């Protein structure tokens, strides 16, 4: 069996790539995808530890994280569409005014 720490290492790398996406890219949609990637890497840790401790609670938490991610995407993409309608851009640097 693959040791849990291997999965943790993989998850750390994926998380770091997600952080890099948020810090380096300015496209709101890509930024959003990077956040999804980070959530996903956290899920991997949950499932890996769930196996290590032989308890299903980790998997249940993944279930909840997925629900939250789905809700977040629905609202987030709606926000992006609304912003695009008023500014014709989804660059987060352009969204610097409080008044649309």
């Amino acid at each position, binding site marked *: *069996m*693959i*040791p*849990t*720490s291997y*999965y*943790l*290492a*993989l998850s750390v*790398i*994926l*998380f*770091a*790539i997600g*952080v*890099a*996406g948020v*810090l*380096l*890219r*300015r*496209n709101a*949609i*890509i930024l*959003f*995808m990077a956040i*999804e*990637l980070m959530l*996903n890497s956290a899920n*991997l840790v949950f*499932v890996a530890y*769930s*196996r*290590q*401790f*032989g308890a*299903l609670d980790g*998997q*249940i938490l*993944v*279930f*909840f994280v*997925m*629900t939250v991610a*789905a*809700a*977040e995407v*629905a*609202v987030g*993409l*709606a*926000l*992006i*569409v609304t912003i*695009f309608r008023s500014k014709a*851009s*989804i*660059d987060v*640097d*352009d969204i610097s005014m409080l008044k649309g």
Partner: protein
Amino acid sequence: MLPNIPELVIFLVLAVIAVAAALGMLASSNAIYSALFLVVNFGVVATFYLLLGAPFIAMAQVTVYAGAIMVLFLFVIMLLGAEKMKQTSHNLLWQKPLSIVLIVLLLSISFYVVLGQGVSVGSDLMQNASGYGSPSAIGTLLFQKYLFPFEATSILLLAAMVGAVVLTGVRRQRRRIRKSRRL
């Protein structure tokens, strides 16, 4: 106790694909390709869930992430025609090197913690319990121990649904347009 060779090879190949897909998402200039790379990544992670004895979560992962969330992303990108937005950032010059330093720092600290833990597979409980990760085991836990959080997520989803409808609602948009015309 080290893993046997075929398992390790499978793990490494999948891990390389996952990391490559994530990097592809990060580097791709076309948002559609970014989304597709992310789908590949999610698919690989679903395979990891299968390897970890979580078939239910793996299927949910494919259905929710690959089937719903990423399709929504693709839909919005295509709808806005936003696949090739220019990077117009000019006011963030010194932050970029700083962010790279921070990412390297994050990686090294996390690796220090993870590797400091040592190599452990965990208990053999999983082999003993035959129903581990099965839909019925998950369901039992979800509807007994985690009933309240489960009900709470339904409210969360409802709120998100209402939010999305309100934000992109047609009527509101029209009113705003009318208002801006008056100005």
